[in-house]
C-alpha cells in the first residue's frame, strides 16, 4: 500500500495535475487526490441528491420538491408523509444502493479484466443468478425469499465455475471474459427453456424478475442492502486502491509489493458479492455496472479506476433510469432493466465508435 506514496514520476513535459495530498493521522500513510476528481465527485453527489428529491416527488401523485424535503425532515403533510415514507423513499433508496453497488462492482471488474466491457453481467454472474431464481420460481415454486436465495446461489456457483474454468497458472482477464461468455450462452438457453416450459403466470413473473425491477420495493430490501453494503463498500474501496498498481501489469505490481493473485481473488469475490446483493434486491439490472465506471472515469479524466465516483455514477444512472422507465410510457410502468438495457446499447455503440475513432 505504501507504494501509492511514492510520487508518480511526472512526465518530462507535463507537470503534476492539481490536487491535494491527504495525510492520514498516525500511520504515515498519505495519498494524492486530483482536484478534478474531487470536483467531479462533488458535482455527482449534488446531482444524486437533487435527483433523489425529484424521484421521490414524481409519480401518479406528484409532490413538489419543497414538500418532499419537508416530508423527509419529518414535518410534512400527512398524505405526503405516507407516500414518501411507505412508497417512494424505499424504492428510491433501493435504487440508489443497488446502483452504487453495481457501479462499484463494475469498476472492480473492468479494472481486473482491463477491459472497458468487462462487467459482472457479461461474465455470467447475472445470467446464473437468473437461472437460480427461475428454478425457484418455476420448478420449486418458492416465495420471494427463496427466489432471492436461488438467485444468490445461482450467481455464486456460476462465478465460481467461470473462475475455475478460466484458471490456468492464475486468471487472465481475457480468458475470464471468454469463459464467461461460453457459460453465459448455455445459461441463456437454459433460462429461455425454463420460461418456455412454465405455466403462463409463472413465466410472466419470472420474465419480469429477470428484466430487473424496482417496483414494490420496501424497507425490507433497503435494510438488507444497508446491512450488507455497509461492510462490502468500505472493504472494496480499501482493497481497490491496489487496482491502480495491478493495472500496471502483474510483474510490475508484484515488484511494487502487491500480492497479485490473492488480491485478484479477493477483489473478484467482493465484486461478485456486491453484484449478488444488488441482484437479490432488484433482479438483474443490465449495463449499470458496465457504463457507470466508464462514465466516471471519463468525467474525472482519470487513468486509474475511480471507485467512489463509480458508486455515485451508478446510483445516479439507476435512479434516473427508474424515473424514466416510470414516466416514459405512463401509465404502463416499464421495469427499470428495460431502460438501462436499451440505454446501455446506445452507450455501447458510443464506446465502440469512440474507441474506433481514436485509432
Amino acid at each position, binding site marked *: 500500500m505504501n507504494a501509492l506514496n511514492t510520487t508518480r514520476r511526472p512526465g518530462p513535459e507535463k507537470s503534476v495535475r492539481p490536487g491535494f495530498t491527504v495525510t492520514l493521522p498516525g500511520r504515515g500513510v498519505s495519498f494524492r487526490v486530483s482536484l478534478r476528481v474531487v470536483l467531479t465527485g462533488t458535482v455527482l453527489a449534488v446531482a444524486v441528491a437533487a435527483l433523489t428529491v425529484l424521484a421521490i416527488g414524481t409519480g401518479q401523485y406528484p409532490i413538489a420538491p419543497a414538500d418532499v424535503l419537508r416530508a423527509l425532515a419529518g414535518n410534512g403533510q400527512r398524505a405526503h408523509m405516507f407516500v414518501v415514507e411507505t412508497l417512494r423513499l424505499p424504492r428510491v433508496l433501493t435504487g440508489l444502493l443497488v446502483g452504487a453497488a453495481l457501479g462499484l462492482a463494475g469498476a472492480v471488474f473492468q479494472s481486473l479484466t482491463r477491459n472497458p*466491457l468487462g462487467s459482472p453481467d457479461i461474465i455470467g454472474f447475472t445470467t446464473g443468478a437468473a437461472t437460480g431464481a427461475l428454478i425457484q420460481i418455476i420448478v420449486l415454486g418458492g416465495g420471494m425469499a427463496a427466489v432471492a436465495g436461488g438467485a444468490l446461489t445461482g450467481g455464486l456457483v456460476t462465478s465460481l465455475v467461470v473462475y475455475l474454468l478460466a484458471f490456468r497458472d492464475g486468471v487472465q482477464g481475457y480468458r475470464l471474459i471468454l469463459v464467461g461468455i461460453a457459460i453465459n*450462452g448455455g445459461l441463456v*438457453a437454459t433460462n429461455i*427453456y425454463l420460461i418456455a416450459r412454465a405455466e403462463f403466470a409463472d413465466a410472466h413473473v419470472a420474465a419480469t424478475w429477470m428484466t430487473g425491477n424496482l417496483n414494490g420495493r420496501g424497507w425490507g430490501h433497503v435494510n438488507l442492502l444497508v446491512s450488507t453494503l455497509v461492510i462490502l463498500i468500505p472493504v472494496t474501496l480499501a482493497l481497490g486502491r491496489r487496482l491502480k498498481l495491478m493495472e500496471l501489469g502483474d510483474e510490475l505490481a508484484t515488484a511494487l509489493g502487491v500480492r497479485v493473485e490473492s488480491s485478484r481473488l479477493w477483489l473478484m469475490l467482493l465484486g461478485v458479492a456486491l453484484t449478488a446483493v444488488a441482484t437479490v434486491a432488484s433482479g438483474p439490472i443490465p449495463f449499470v455496472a458496465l457504463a457507470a465506471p466508464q462514465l466516471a472515469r471519463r468525467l474525472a479524466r482519470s487513468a486509474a479506476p475511480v471507485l467512489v465516483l463509480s458508486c455515485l455514477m451508478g446510483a445516479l444512472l439507476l435512479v434516473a433510469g427508474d424515473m424514466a422507465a416510470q414516466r416514459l410510457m405512463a401509465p404502463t410502468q416499464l421495469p427499470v432493466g428495460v431502460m438501462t*438495457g436499451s440505454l*446501455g*446499447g446506445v452507450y455501447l455503440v458510443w464506446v465502440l465508435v469512440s474507441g474506433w475513432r481514436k485509432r
Partner: protein
Amino acid sequence: MTVGQDLKAPLPPTAVSRAGRMRGTALRSAGALLAVLLLVLAVFASLAIGSKAIPPGDVLRLLLHPDNSDAAHVIHDLRVPRTLLGIGVGACLALAGALMQALTRNPLADPGILGVEAGAVVAIAVAIGLFGLHDLRDFVWFSFAGSAAAAVVVYLIGSSGRSGATPVRLALAGTAVSAALASATQAFALTDPEAFNQYRYWGTGALSGHDLSVVIRVAPFMAIGLVIAMSLGNSLNALALGDDAGRALGVRPGRTRVLGVIAVTLLCGAATAAVGPIGFIGLIVAQAARLAVGQDNRWVLLYSALLGPVLLLVSDIVGRLVLWPAELEAGVVTAFIGMPVFLALVRRRRIAQL
C-alpha cells in the same frame, strides 16, 4: 490487419505442389462424400425417431406412398417439415458462421455469439409487437433488416482501427449487443401478454411446430444466400492474404465484404424468422470444417453447408430422446453442445493469443 498475422497463415492454393494438391482434392472430395452420407443418415433418423418411433423400413415406403395411417401423417405433417427446416436452417447458420469467421478473421465468430440473431429477434419482436404483423411473409423483412443492422455493426467493429478487433473484443461486443437487444425484446414482450406467450416458445429455437408453408416461404431467401455464400470461396481465400495481395490477385475487397454481409443477412435472417434463434451451430461446424480441410475457404464453405444440417438434425434428435416422450428444443441442445466446444477453443493457448 495485424490480426491476420496471428492466425495460422493460410496457404495460398498455389503454394502447394500440384501432386499434393491433387491428393488433397481427392481426400477432401472423399470427405465431402462422407459428409453427404452423414447427412442422409441424419435425415433418415430424423424421420424415424421421435415420441412415435417408426421402423426404418416403413419410413421410405410411407414417404413415397402415403397411406392414411397415423405413421404416414406423423411423417408427412410433422417430421418432413421439421427435417426440411433442420436441413435449411443448419446449412444457413453454419455457412453464416463460416463466412463471419472468414470476414472478421475471428475464430469465435458465430451468428449467435456476435449478436446477428439477436438483431433479427428484436426486429421480429418490433414487427409483431408494434406493427401487429403475424405472418412470416411480412416479418421476414424485419428479420433481414435486424440481422443486417447487427451484421454491419459487427463488421464495423471487426474492421475498426489498426489494432483491429481481437476475438475477445468482438465476442464481448457481440454479447453486450445481444444483451442490449434482448432487453429491448423483453420490453415488447412484457407489455403484451399475448405476444409474450408466443415469443417465449419461439425464442427457444425449436424445429418442431412449423408446417410446410414456413419452409416454402423462407426457402427462396435461403437459396439465394446459399448461392452467394458458396460463390465467395475464392475471393475470401485471396483476401486472407491481406487486402493488397487480394487486389493484386484480382479480387475487389469491398465488393467481397458487401456480398458477404448480404449473404450473412439472408442466411441468418431467414433462419431466425423461420425457427427462432439457434446459437453455436456456426461456431462448431465452421471450426470442425476448418479442422478437417485447412484454410481453403471454398472447402470450408462446402463442408459447413453439409455438416451444419447434420449437427442441427442430430441436436434435434437428441432433444427428442433425452426427455422422451417429451422434447427438448433444438436451440437448447445446440447451446449445450456448443458451450464445451467454445470453452475448449478459449482454453487453447493459440486462440487465446489472437
